[in-house]
């Protein structure tokens, strides 16, 4: 009859192995899998570059932001959200414009919860893409503070990166002006019910208003770029003179930062209002006294809450 040896008892041996393996093998392996499932090692949190994600929805909308898809609730959370707005017909030269979520009529707070069942696809936005550059420029315009420690550090453009944004904004303002002037010229080619003198007076008044819109838009650009009053005045004066001689019809469009895009779209709306008012006067037998509404493009216009175009 052999004596019982606790050291060789298979149950005790298995217990000892398990007690060692769970904390030193199983737990690190599970932790590694969980961390890897939620982290892209090519852009590590805290120290790595920003991770911007595109969430494309089944209805055709596209949202860009910082994605949190770690939960199992069937809901994705997107923060710092931007989206595309239909810009066909706008003088930006692109079919879409980028809009910052949060400026709609209902002023949603940050943190958009998206039903996963309504998601079509999720993609990573490259840091050198037009969308990423426009977002970084917007943060620079708004002087967004970058936290010292962040799991997804937001990228903020330098002052140099704002130069092409400013140039593209000026081009958009100029394209809108040129289109409105061309429209007026075409109207004047028609047989009008007003006298030639009246038509000339109405057209001159409209051109003056269009130039006022352009100067106001440039003033809004200077304000967004945080120029001093003296710099802003000089900027508006010199740029306005330069734009008078340029149409930029052949220049490629640049995706603008939302605040700059809002200035271009607002200016475009005002150009249209001036043109419409002049057209009404030119096509009526008795022209009314006033030619156009007040003109002051502002970057703080509220975009539509419904983005319409996927890239």
């Amino acid at each position, binding site marked *: 009859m052999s004596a019982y040896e606790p050291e060789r008892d298979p149950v005790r041996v298995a217990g000892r192995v398990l007690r060692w393996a769970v*904390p*030193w*093998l199983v*737990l*690190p*392996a*599970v*932790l*590694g*899998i969980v*961390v*890897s*499932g939620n982290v*892209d*090692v090519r852009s590590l949190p805290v120290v790595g570059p920003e991770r911007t994600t*595109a969430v494309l929805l*089944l*209805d*055709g909308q*596209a949202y*860009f932001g910082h994605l949190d898809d770690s939960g199992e609730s069937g809901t994705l959370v997107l923060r710092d959200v931007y989206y*595309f707005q239909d810009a066909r017909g706008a003088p930006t030269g*692109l079919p*879409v414009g980028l809009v910052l979520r949060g400026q709609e009529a209902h002023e949603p707070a940050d943190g958009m919860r998206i039903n*996963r*069942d309504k*998601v*079509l*696809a*999720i*993609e*990573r*936005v*490259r840091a*050198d*893409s*037009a*969308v*990423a550059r426009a977002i970084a420029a917007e943060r620079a315009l708004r002087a967004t503070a970058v936290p010292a420690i962040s799991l997804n550090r937001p990228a903020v453009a330098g002052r140099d990166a704002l130069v092409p944004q400013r140039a593209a904004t000026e081009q958009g303002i100029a394209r809108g002006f040129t289109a409105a002037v061309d429209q007026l010229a075409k109207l004047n080619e028609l047989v009008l019910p007003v006298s030639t003198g009246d038509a000339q007076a109405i057209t001159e008044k409209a051109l003056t208003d269009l130039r006022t819109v352009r100067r106001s838009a440039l003033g809004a650009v200077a304000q967004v770029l945080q120029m001093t009053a003296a710099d802003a005045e000089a900027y508006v004066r010199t740029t306005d003179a330069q734009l008078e001689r340029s149409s930029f019809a052949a220049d490629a469009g640049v*995706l603008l930062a939302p605040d700059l895009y809002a200035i271009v779209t607002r200016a475009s709306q005002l150009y249209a209002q001036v043109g419409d008012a002049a057209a009404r006067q030119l096509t009526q037998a008795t022209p009314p006294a006033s030619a156009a509404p007040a003109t002051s493009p502002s970057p703080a216009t509220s975009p539509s809450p419904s983005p319409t175009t996927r*890239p």
Partner: protein
Amino acid sequence: MAVATAVFVAALFFTQWWDFTLPSLGRADYQAVFLANGQTYFGRYYDRLGAYVKIEDVHYLQQTEGANPDQAPDTKLVRRGRELHSPAARMLVPRSAVLFVEDLSDASPIAQFMKQDRQ
């Protein structure tokens, strides 16, 4: 402690390489993925553990209207990645958005185009 650290790092990099994709033997190089919104993506489809499937080297058909409205629109196969947000090659699609998936035969002109485009 060194063992635990080594296991953690090994698990982390193994999972990054693995990407939770499930093996599928004997399938074609490229697949057509038909989605719930009517859109079709072509690429290398991978089933994954979890809520998403993965498509790599994504292409899609793009139609452009010609100057003559009576003519049929011009259709071409476009590699995804040149859009305004320059998406990376890896696309995750929720399972709920996938209608069905089909293998592309080797003779498929779309598969041949994607093979050439990859080289």
